Each structure stands twice: as structure tokens, then as C-alpha cells.
């Protein structure tokens, strides 16, 4: 099987979807001349729509097109801009299926690349995932591998409610194999182990995988299991609980602060395990509760070193 990187996996998901779904359109900025030039040449400017810098109306239009049975991918330049279209995401997109009693579907992907480590500063390096965590019917994908990137994108377009697709540009060049089949939103066990479960999504899942590999080299071979969530909402708690129940020790890694997000959600979900299942209290390793400065974002985020360090503590 050949390897593909994360960025190309997203691109392939879009290409395959455009080919297979004749009523799928893409709306964004600077697409036909640059970002999606080959797609525009293949499918025409009706389906690859260059739009003004109007993110709120872009999402609203996607909902309107979905009312007529279309599928839409809205390309937002980076995740921070979700603040501009928050109204349209929550009020127009997420509620459509519910408010119409299921008579209208909203198979819309809102692509929100996380753009840290690129010198954007605090207006361009937010994750923003947890801002949406309490919105019912909103799917949130945060893929941590090329296969998850590909399949969560394909999966999103089959759902009757919209999906925020938080792809992390910091792992764009990470390579892997594509799974043969759509896991249907299930989390992935990307490293198998017996003594500790590390849970994460997006870049944090990639960090967990690297930490598991590093710990293998340090004498903890076969110890660490990694659960890469992929979809953080709805969240595959079954896979999480099975792994945690097996290893008895849990570390949850999240780039955002601890107030909200999948980390506190998963930590609460662990209460569903039978009493005594865990050998010790689950631990969260999270981003600092502050903005990330332009000059260096890394000291305020989980790193390979501190994931390895936290895992080592738990394995003692």
C-alpha cells in the first residue's frame, strides 16, 4: 500500500467526492486560480466558486444550496475565521435538520484549517474547536492521520447535519496509509499497548503516536495504546472505554485549555467504567489558558517531551 500525506489525503477526499457527487460544490476564496485550480479546470467554475471575503454568507449560502439537495464544502482560510461565521454555523447550518423535523438535510463541510506555527499570531493561531462543542447536531472532525483526514471528510458528506472539519496544518506532511474502508466515524487505535491509553485528536493524536514510539525505544515497548478520536463529536466513547478498561491508565492530550473540548468530555466519560477499572485518576495534558504569542507558540502547547514525560510518570 502506498503512503499519502495528510494534506494530500484531504485533497484526495475532495477530488473523489467531486467526482462521485455531481451536485457537490465548493465555495471559498482564491480557489480557481490557485488553491483548487485542477478541480476548477475539471469541474468548471459553477462547482468551484470563487467568493468575496464573506464567510458568514458563504456558510449561509451553503445551507441554502443544501435545502435544494446539494452538498457543499465551504473553504474557510483558517480556523480563527470561524468567529466571523459563528452565527451562520450555529443558527443556519446546525439547526436546519432539527428545525425542519428532518425534512431538510445539511450535508455541508466547513473546512477550518488550524494554522499554528506559521507566524500568524493570536488572530491566526487559534484551534477554536471547543467553541462549538455544545452545539447539538454539529459534527466536529479533528483528524490526526491521513487516513482519518480522508475518511472523516468522506463520512461528513454522508451525514444529514453539517461538519466542522478542523484539519491541522502542522501535520500536513505526516504520511500514512489510507484505510480501505470508511470507519464511519469510529476512533482509531493507532498504537496498540497494554499499560497506558493516550487519547487525543488532530495534532495531539499525532504527538501521542510519536510519544508511544519514543517510549518503545526507552524500554516501554508494547506499553502505550493510542486512541486517535478523529470525530470528536459525536465521540466514539466505546473505543475509548474499551481501551481505558484494558490498560487501566489514561492520559488525554489536548491543544486547547482544559475548560472545554474533548479532554474534559472524555475524562467525564471514563466515569462510565465499572468502579475500580482504572488504577489511577486519568490525567489531562492541555494547552495553557492564554493566547499563543507570535514569537513562539510551542511553550504553551503540549509537546512531544511533555507527553513522553507525563506518560512515563503514569507508567511508573
Amino acid at each position, binding site marked *: 500500500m502506498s503512503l499519502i500525506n495528510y494534506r494530500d489525503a484531504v485533497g484526495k477526499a475532495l477530488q473523489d467526492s467531486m467526482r462521485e457527487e455531481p*451536485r457537490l*460544490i465548493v465555495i471559498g476564496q482564491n480557489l480557481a486560480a490557485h488553491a483548487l485550480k485542477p478541480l476548477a479546470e475539471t469541474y468548471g467554475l*459553477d*462547482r468551484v*466558486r470563487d*467568493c*468575496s471575503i*464573506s464567510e*458568514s*454568507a*458563504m*456558510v*449561509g*449560502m*451553503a*445551507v*441554502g*444550496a*443544501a*435545502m*435544494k*439537495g*446539494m452538498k*457543499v464544502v465551504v473553504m474557510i482560510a483558517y480556523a480563527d475565521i470561524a468567529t466571523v461565521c459563528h*452565527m*451562520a454555523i450555529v*443558527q*443556519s447550518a446546525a*439547526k*436546519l435538520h*432539527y*428545525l*425542519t*423535523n428532518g*425534512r*431538510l438535510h445539511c450535508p455541508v463541510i466547513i473546512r477550518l484549517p488550524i494554522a499554528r506555527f506559521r507566524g500568524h499570531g493570536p488572530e491566526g493561531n487559534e484551534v477554536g474547536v471547543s467553541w462549538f462543542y455544545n452545539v447539538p447536531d454539529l459534527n466536529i472532525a479533528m483528524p490526526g492521520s491521513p487516513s482519518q483526514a480522508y475518511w472523516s471528510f468522506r463520512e461528513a458528506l454522508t451525514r444529514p447535519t453539517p461538519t466542522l472539519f478542523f484539519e491541522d496544518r502542522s501535520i500536513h506532511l505526516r504520511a500514512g496509509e489510507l484505510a480501505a474502508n470508511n470507519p464511519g466515524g469510529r476512533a482509531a487505535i493507532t498504537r496498540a499497548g497494554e499499560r497506558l491509553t493516550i487519547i487525543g485528536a488532530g495534532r495531539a493524536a499525532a504527538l501521542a503516536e510519536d510519544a508511544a514510539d519514543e517510549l518503545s525505544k526507552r524500554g516501554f515497548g508494547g506499553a502505550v495504546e493510542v486512541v486517535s478520536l478523529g470525530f470528536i463529536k459525536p465521540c466514539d466513547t466505546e473505543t475509548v472505554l474499551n481501551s481505558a478498561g484494558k490498560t487501566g491508565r489514561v492520559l488525554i492530550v489536548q491543544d486547547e485549555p482544559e475548560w472545554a473540548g474533548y479532554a474534559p468530555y472524555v475524562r467525564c466519560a471514563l466515569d462510565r467504567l465499572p468502579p475500580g477499572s482504572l488504577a489511577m485518576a486519568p490525567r489531562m495534558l492541555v494547552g495553557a489558558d492564554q493566547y499563543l504569542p507570535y514569537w513562539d507558540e510551542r511553550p504553551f502547547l503540549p509537546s512531544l517531551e511533555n507527553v513522553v514525560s507525563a506518560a512515563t510518570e503514569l507508567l511508573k
Partner: protein
Amino acid sequence: MRWEHEKKHPAQTFPSKGQEAIAIGTCLALEQGDDVLPSFRTRGAMIGMGIGIEEQLREFLHTPSAVGDARDAPHHASWPERGVMPGSTMIGGHLAMAAGVALANQTDGASNVSVAFFGDGTLGSGDLHETMHIAGSWRLPLILVCENNGWEMATPWPKVRQQRSLIPYAEPFGLASRQVDGNDAMDVYQSARWARATALGGQPVFLDCLTFRMGLYSSHFGEVRPGIENDLAEAAKRDPLKRLGDWLISNGMASADDLARLQRVEERRIEAAFAHVAAEL
């Protein structure tokens, strides 16, 4: 609103008294396959698209056969398969949704338009400007129908903008526009026919329909608009139902007695509809 005060249903209502001609005249000008997105005050668009009184009342009362299961507030109720799309979102947001319907029609090569209704207070919403910008640029088959009643809740238009008409704001975006006497059903109908042809011909349209809100902003808001007695008296003279009736009489198509009888019949029909729907509970 009376039923609400009698506690027969819990919905907040947004009276459209004085503005009826805009929705009805527009919807009568549409064709099979066209869609409308009403504002919270555009009850007439549901009626104009053929949604029966009983069907609408089921959403007020949450009867077992309410197709929307009374999930959305009754002023946002929708019948998508019959061209009444939900305008549910924040003020102005539904205009972008209407542009999306137009986008789908354009991409599919369908010969249909989408129509969004909204009040002149929506001028303050960024989504109106974004929608006009995109619709003009992409030449979407979209018709924006402004129910320009001159009031934002209890605030008269001169306090919140420079010009009564919204056409000066719409034209630079590339929309064809027309000032319409919103209290004249014939003018609305003719304008909407022109708008439909223009929109399908490749230029979105802005209809600025001047009117006057004779009732409250809403049944819950209960605002006071001091000094509007003269405006109300003037609006009563220009009442769209009265004017259409006068036109029918002057053209020999109905007598005053015919119209009075029709009004009685319709009032009885609406009361009977409520009783019938309430009996479904």
C-alpha cells in the same frame, strides 16, 4: 394575536396588518419550483404559496399531524417541498440562505428563482450586504423583497439611516431594483413578474416595497410609537385590502356586498379551522 391573548396558543405573533399585499402579490407572481424564505413577519408568504390555514395552525398548537412537529416557532414554519423554505436564523442570515437556493438553481440550470422577504431594519445586518455583493457578482436568480415599513421596532427609520429607500444601497452591488408601492397588490404583482424575468435573465433584483406597519412589532414587545396617529390614518386610507377591493368594485368585478360577504365567509372559515385543528389535540 387574539388567540394568543385568549391563551389558545403560546406563540409570539408578528402582525403584518397593512403589509399584506407585498407577500401575496409576490407569491402570486411565482411559478412552480420557485422558493420563498419568509421573514418572521411574512405570514402572507405561507398563505400565498398555498399553505392552508389549518396546516399553519397545526404548527401553533403542536398537533400530532404538524409536519414540522412544532419544533420551530410558527413564524418560521416551513413546507420545503412546497416552496416555503425556513427563514430560521438571525436577522439577515436567511438572505444568504436564499442566495444559496438561487445558487443551487443556477448550478442545476433550473429556471427557478428564490425570493427572500425582509424588513428595512435588515439594512443594518452584514449578511444583507454580503448577500447582495455575492448575488450581484454571481448574477444569481435571486429576488430580495424589502417590506420597507419605515420602522425598526419602535424606532423610525430617520434615526437609524440616511435614506428611506434601500435602492441606493442595492444598486452598486449590481442588483436591478424597483421602487414599489407595497400597499398596491397590482404594483407588487407586476413588479414581481418583472423581477422574476430579470432574475432568470441573469440579474438579481431588489424590490423596495414601501408600506407602513399598522400593528405592533410583536404581540410581546408592545411598543409605543408616539405621534403616529396621522400616519395610521393615512395608512388606513391606503390599506392594501381596501384598495384592492375598491379596484375590484370600480372595475365591475365585485360589489361591496360581495366583498363584505367574502370577508364574513373567510372569518368564519378561519375560526372553524382553529376549532378543527384544536380538536386534533
